[in-house]
C-alpha cells in the first residue's frame, strides 16, 4: 500500500511515511483547533464593532480566553438525544460533517511544499471532499426527527448542491489558465501576478459560491435562527454541537486558504519564495484572514436572502456568467490570445455581475415576481 500512497507525499522530516503523516496530522489538528477558537473570538469581536458593541471583554485580557471558556462549558454540558431521533444517524452526523472538512485541510499548501500532503489532483480533491460535507448535514437533519432540522437540511442540500456548480466552474476557469490541478504548482505559477487579476469574474463567483457553501450570511438560510431556530443542528447540544461549530469554522478557514492559494497567489505573491517559509506562512495566513474579514463584513452588513432569490441568483446569474467565462477563456487560450485579453473579458464580466447585483439590490419591491404573485393571488391553506 505504501508504494501506492508514496507519490502523494514528499518526506520532509526524513522518517517513515506513516509516522510523518501522523505527526503532521496531529500538528494540523492542534493548529486548526486554536485557529477555530480565535476565529470565533474574532467573529464576535469584529461583528460587535460593526454593531457598535464591545463583544467579549471579561475572560482574559480583552476577552482573549472567551472561546476556551466556551469550549470548557460545552464539554461539560449534557449530551442530549431526542427520543424520536434515529440513534446512529443522529450520533454519527457531526463526525460525517467534520471528516470531509478535515481531509480538505490536510491537502492545502500553507507554504511551499508545506502541508500534510500534496496531491497532484489537489484542487479536484478539495472540491469533491467539500461536496461530501452535505451528507453529514443531511444525516443531522433527517436523523433528528424534528421538522425544523429537516427543513434546515433540505434547504442546505438544495443550496449547497446548486452553488457547487458555479463554484466548480469558476475554479475550472482558473484551471484552464494554470493547466494543473496541483495546488502547490498553482501557487508557484502566480509569482508575478495572482489569478484574481486575470480572472476577476471567476473570483467574484467563487467568493459568492463560497459564502453559500459555508452557510454564511447573506446565504445562511439553512441555519437561520430567526426562521428555523438554527436549522439542521437544532437538536444537538454539548460536544456534538461544538463539533458542528468546529467543522463550520474549520471549513471557513480551509476555504479561505484554498481561495487565497488559487486566486491570490498563496505563499508566492507578491514577494516570491526568497524570504523563507516563515514569511510564506504569514502571507498565506494573512490572505486567508483577509478573506475571513470580508466574510464577516458581509455578514454584518447584508440582510439574509429569500430562498427563491437565492436559487434564481445561482441558476440565472452565476451559472451563465461562469459558463461565459469558461467559453471566453477557451477561445482566448486556444487561439493564443495575450493574457491582458483574459483580464479585459473577465473584468467586463465582473462589471456586468456587479451591475446585476446592484440593480437587484436597489430595485423597488413589487408583487410581480413569483413569490409576490403567490402572496397576493393564491390562498395559503390553513395548517
Amino acid at each position, binding site marked *: 500500500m505504501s508504494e501506492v500512497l508514496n507519490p502523494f507525499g514528499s518526506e520532509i522530516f526524513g522518517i517513515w511515511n506513516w509516522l510523518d503523516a501522523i505527526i503532521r496530522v496531529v500538528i494540523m489538528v492542534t493548529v486548526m483547533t486554536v485557529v477555530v477558537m480565535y476565529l470565533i473570538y474574532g467573529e464576535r469581536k469584529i461583528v460587535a464593532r460593526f454593531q457598535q458593541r464591545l463583544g467579549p471583554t471579561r475572560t482574559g485580557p480583552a476577552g482573549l480566553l472567551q472561546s476556551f471558556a466556551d469550549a470548557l462549558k460545552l464539554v461539560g454540558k449534557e449530551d442530549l438525544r431526542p427520543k424520536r431521533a434515529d440513534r446512529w444517524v443522529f450520533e454519527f452526523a457531526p463526525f460525517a460533517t467534520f471528516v470531509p472538512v478535515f481531509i480538505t485541510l490536510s491537502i492545502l499548501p500553507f507554504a511551499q511544499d508545506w502541508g500534510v500532503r500534496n496531491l497532484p489532483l489537489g484542487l479536484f480533491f478539495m472540491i*469533491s471532499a467539500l461536496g*461530501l460535507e452535505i451528507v453529514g448535514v*443531511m444525516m443531522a437533519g433527517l436523523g433528528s426527527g424534528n421538522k425544523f432540522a429537516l427543513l434546515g437540511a433540505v434547504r442546505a442540500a438544495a443550496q449547497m*448542491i446548486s452553488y457547487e456548480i458555479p463554484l466548480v466552474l469558476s475554479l475550472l476557469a482558473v484551471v484552464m489558465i494554470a493547466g494543473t490541478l496541483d495546488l502547490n504548482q498553482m501557487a508557484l505559477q502566480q509569482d508575478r501576478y495572482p489569478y484574481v487579476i486575470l480572472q476577476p469574474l471567476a473570483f467574484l463567483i467563487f467568493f459568492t459560491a463560497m459564502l453559500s457553501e459555508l452557510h454564511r450570511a447573506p446565504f445562511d438560510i439553512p441555519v437561520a435562527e430567526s426562521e428555523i431556530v438554527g436549522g439542521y443542528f437544532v437538536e444537538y447540544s454539548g460536544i456534538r454541537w461544538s463539533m458542528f461549530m468546529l467543522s463550520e469554522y474549520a471549513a471557513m478557514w480551509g476555504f479561505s486558504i484554498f481561495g487565497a492559494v488559487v486566486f491570490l497567489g498563496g505563499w508566492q505573491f507578491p514577494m516570491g519564495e526568497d524570504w523563507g517559509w516563515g514569511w510564506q506562512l504569514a502571507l498565506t495566513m494573512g490572505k486567508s484572514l483577509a478573506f475571513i474579514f470580508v466574510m464577516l463584513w458581509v455578514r454584518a452588513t447584508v440582510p439574509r436572502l429569500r430562498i427563491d432569490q437565492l436559487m434564481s441568483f445561482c441558476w440565472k446569474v452565476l451559472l451563465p456568467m461562469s459558463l461565459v467565462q469558461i467559453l471566453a477563456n477557451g477561445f482566448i487560450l486556444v487561439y493564443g490570445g495575450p493574457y491582458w485579453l483574459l483580464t479585459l473579458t473577465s473584468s467586463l464580466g465582473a462589471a456586468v455581475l456587479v451591475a446585476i447585483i446592484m440593480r437587484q439590490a436597489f430595485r423597488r419591491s413589487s408583487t410581480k415576481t413569483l413569490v409576490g404573485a403567490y402572496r397576493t393571488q393564491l390562498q395559503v391553506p390553513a395548517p
Partner: protein
Amino acid sequence: MATEVLWWIFAVAIVGVSAGVVFSRSVIHSAIFLILSMVGVGAMYLLLMVEFLAIVQLLIYGGAVTVLILLALMLTRMGAGGAAQKVDGPQMPFALLAGGGILAILVGVAVSTSWPGDVDDQPTGISIELISEKLFQDFGAPFVIASALLLVALVGAIILARQEDAD
C-alpha cells in the same frame, strides 16, 4: 500481497454495505449505506491507481446520493424520520421483472466481454489527459447523448415529484 488483502477487505465491505442498501428499512439508512458503498468503490479505484476516477466517484455520488434522498423524500410519503414502509402494490411483479432483468443484462455483459488490459498484478495508472481524450474526442457523441439522457431523466423526476402537490 498487501494490495490483495486490502482488495479482499474492500470487496467484502462493499458487498456488505450494498446488502445494507437493499435490506435496510428506511430510506436514510439505505442512502448512508449507499454512500459507504460508493466510498468503497472509490477505494477500489485507488488500488487500481486511478486517483482521478476515485475522486470523481466521491464528487459525483456524494452529491448524487443527497439528491437521491431528496427525491426519495419527495416521491414517497413518509415521516421526517424516514419511517419504515411496507413494500407491496400491483407493480410488485413488474418491479421484480425490471430489477431482475437489469441484473441479468449487467452480469451477462460483464461476463461475456473480454476486457482489454486485463493483466494480473499490474495496476494500470491512467492519467487525466488519457481519460479526457477518450471522453471528449474518441467518444464525444456518446458523451453528449448520455448527458442529454441524464437531463431528460432529471426533468422527468422533477415533474413526477411535483405532480403529487397538484393532487
